[in-house]
């Protein structure tokens, strides 16, 4: 039960959540709710693993993962943007589709691969920073560092650039955006695919770096759904998304590790290889997600802020109101 190890692993697992959550933040800021993250992460994980095992090239695997998941999210886009179907149900269908496709095409994949298929790095100077160095910059997968970069870049893009302004406009008031000459459809499609690709990247990160291998549905174990919840907790902000992701990752590791030692804080460890309590520990991540959601929702209520105003609503130009 080493706090250093827990935080270190937390950052690693958290990176997966971070990718998926930030991707969904992009999509939701544009006004499109995509609940199919779990399915897209699975497709990403499966395709990244199978391509990398076949070609030995991890980067190629990641690219294919992003393309596959992005392509799947394009379907969601067509159905919700052009066909104006209900975004919730379409997202659910996408989950089924993604899960099904990954199971079918992943059948027979050699499940081996306990070794990471992507390089792990230690950054020389930064690794010597007390406390943070060993956690953040020592022996972390290259994906983790990518995550560090993504967060500020995403924040800057959304809040300080012109395309970011357009993104936010389309999700807040698509009618206004349309009237100002923005192509609502094109922008929504783009960001839905960005969200999908990042979810695919998240999946690839799992199967290539964090928990290498392909274990059917257990590969993601509900992380796609947790990411959806984290978006609300994050109040659609990349920094909070990162915080939530890392905290969640740390929690996961804690649950694993707490069952190990015979003594906990000097007392006999009640979780020590106890088959019964193990199940309650299993519940913790999901209960945690619910708690996180409650916090996020209350905050949104209090601040009278919250979701992008047009989230979940299809946009039809030229509606003749009464």
């Amino acid at each position, binding site marked *: 039960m080493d706090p250093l190890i827990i935080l270190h692993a937390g950052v690693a697992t958290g990176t997966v959540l971070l990718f998926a959550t930030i991707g969904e933040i992009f999509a939701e800021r544009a006004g499109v709710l995509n*609940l199919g993250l779990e*399915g897209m992460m699975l497709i990403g994980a499966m395709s990244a693993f199978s391509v990398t095992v076949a070609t030995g090239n991890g980067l190629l695997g990641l690219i294919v993962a992003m393309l596959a998941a992005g392509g799947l999210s394009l*379907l969601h886009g*067509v*159905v919700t943007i*052009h*066909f*104006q*179907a*209900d975004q*919730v*149900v*379409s997202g*659910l*269908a*996408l*989950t*089924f*589709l*993604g*899960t*099904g*496709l*990954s*199971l*079918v*095409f*992943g*059948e*027979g994949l050699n499940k081996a691969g306990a070794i990471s298929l992507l390089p792990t790095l230690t950054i020389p100077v930064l690794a010597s920073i007390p406390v943070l160095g060993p956690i953040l910059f020592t022996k972390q997968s290259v994906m983790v560092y990518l995550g560090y970069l993504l967060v500020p870049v995403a924040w800057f893009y959304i809040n300080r650039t012109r395309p970011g302004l357009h993104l936010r406009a389309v999700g807040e008031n698509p009618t206004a955006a349309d009237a100002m000459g923005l*192509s609502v*459809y*094109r922008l929504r499609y783009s960001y839905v695919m960005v969200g999908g690709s990042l979810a695919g990247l998240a999946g690839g990160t799992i199967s290539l770096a964090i928990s290498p291998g392909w274990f059917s549905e257990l590969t993601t174990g*509900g992380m796609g*759904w947790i990411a*959806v*919840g984290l978006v*609300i907790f994050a109040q659609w902000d990349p920094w909070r998304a990162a915080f939530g992701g890392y905290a969640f990752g740390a929690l996961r590791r804690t649950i694993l590790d707490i069952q190990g030692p015979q003594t906990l804080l000097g007392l006999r460890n009640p979780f020590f290889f106890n*088959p*019964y309590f193990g*199940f*309650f520990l*299993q*519940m913790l991540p*999901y*209960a945690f*997600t*619910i708690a996180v*959601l*409650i916090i996020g*929702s*209350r905050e*949104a*209520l209090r601040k009278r802020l919250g979701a992008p105003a047009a989230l979940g609503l299809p946009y*039809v*130009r*030229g509606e003749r109101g009464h």
Partner: protein
Amino acid sequence: MTGSDSAESRLPGGIRLPFEIQVEPRLHVPRWLSPLISVIAILVALLLGALVLALVGGDPVRAYAHIAGAAFGSLGVFSDTLVKATPLIMTGLACSVAFQMKLWNIGAEGQFYMGALGASIVILAGVVPADAPRLVAIPIMLVAGVVFGAAWGLVPGWLKARLRVNEIITSLMLNYIAIALVNYFIFGVWSEGGFQMTRTFQQAAWLPRLSDLAEQFPILRGLTTHFGLVFAVVAAVIVWYILFRSLWGYEIRLIGDNPRAAKYAGINITRNTVFVMMLSGGIAGLGGMSEIAGVVHRLQGSISPGYGFTGIIIAWLAKLNPLVVLPVSVLFGGLILAGREIQPAGVPRLIQGIILFMLIASEVFLRYRIRLVRRP
């Protein structure tokens, strides 16, 4: 999408087709259009499924023929299909009821498990005496199953009603928690010989089957269809009555269509959110109870291959109509039954996903009329 305007309707690369696609909102929806479109959507989905199967090296024709035969080929097999359909009817009803109010209950799976747990607890913990007759044991199990399922629906319902917490995620998280809870009981407390199951229930806790009557009617020999089917049909009729004949159902449908208008009409949305989620959870819980009392007669690990999720698709395909849920569930029951033997293992799930997707995509044809007009 109005008239022929908007540059969006041009194909990428500036390709111009010899005709123009005109899309306009449909003013009147003929009654026969909706089922027709659903059927076409399913056929297209099956086609796509066949394509995917072929891509991974399977034989789609043989697979589909196998499914048809293995699900509906003979009386015995059809009886098995009905057994699979029974829990599907329940989860389909549970989802229909909630969706009518635009409450996205994704937790039917967890509520199903909790219902099974509740029914098991009253037997295994001795609430029902070991020597109690069937007429005592079964009703108590039924009530327990419904109550546990309703409680599991209450949580996301209350959170949504009072704290505006998204019910999709909460109900989904509760699925995982419910399964872990059930695991606790079957691996730990009541584990039978270290296997992941409890002891078998006493005979009085078994739902009667058709094969019980095999002595009087030899034709019924080996048929596993059980009394849970009766529960399911009765539940469907009751839910239909509630939704389309009662005052409550009117309120539910009004809230689902326009919550602001419902509030304006003096309807209490908070209370209805909680009650409808409890009703939904209770029905799913009844499904869980019926499954363990009718099929496996004990609490064990894998009592549901995703009935709760398939219920979503069934509800959508049935257009949220409880009576239509019945035949649709039989169809999916057959798919699940026969699909067990198909390789690869993800195929039934995939086909379900494609079907739901095609259904959603096809709804556009109900809202819009598409015409091809020759370009001058």
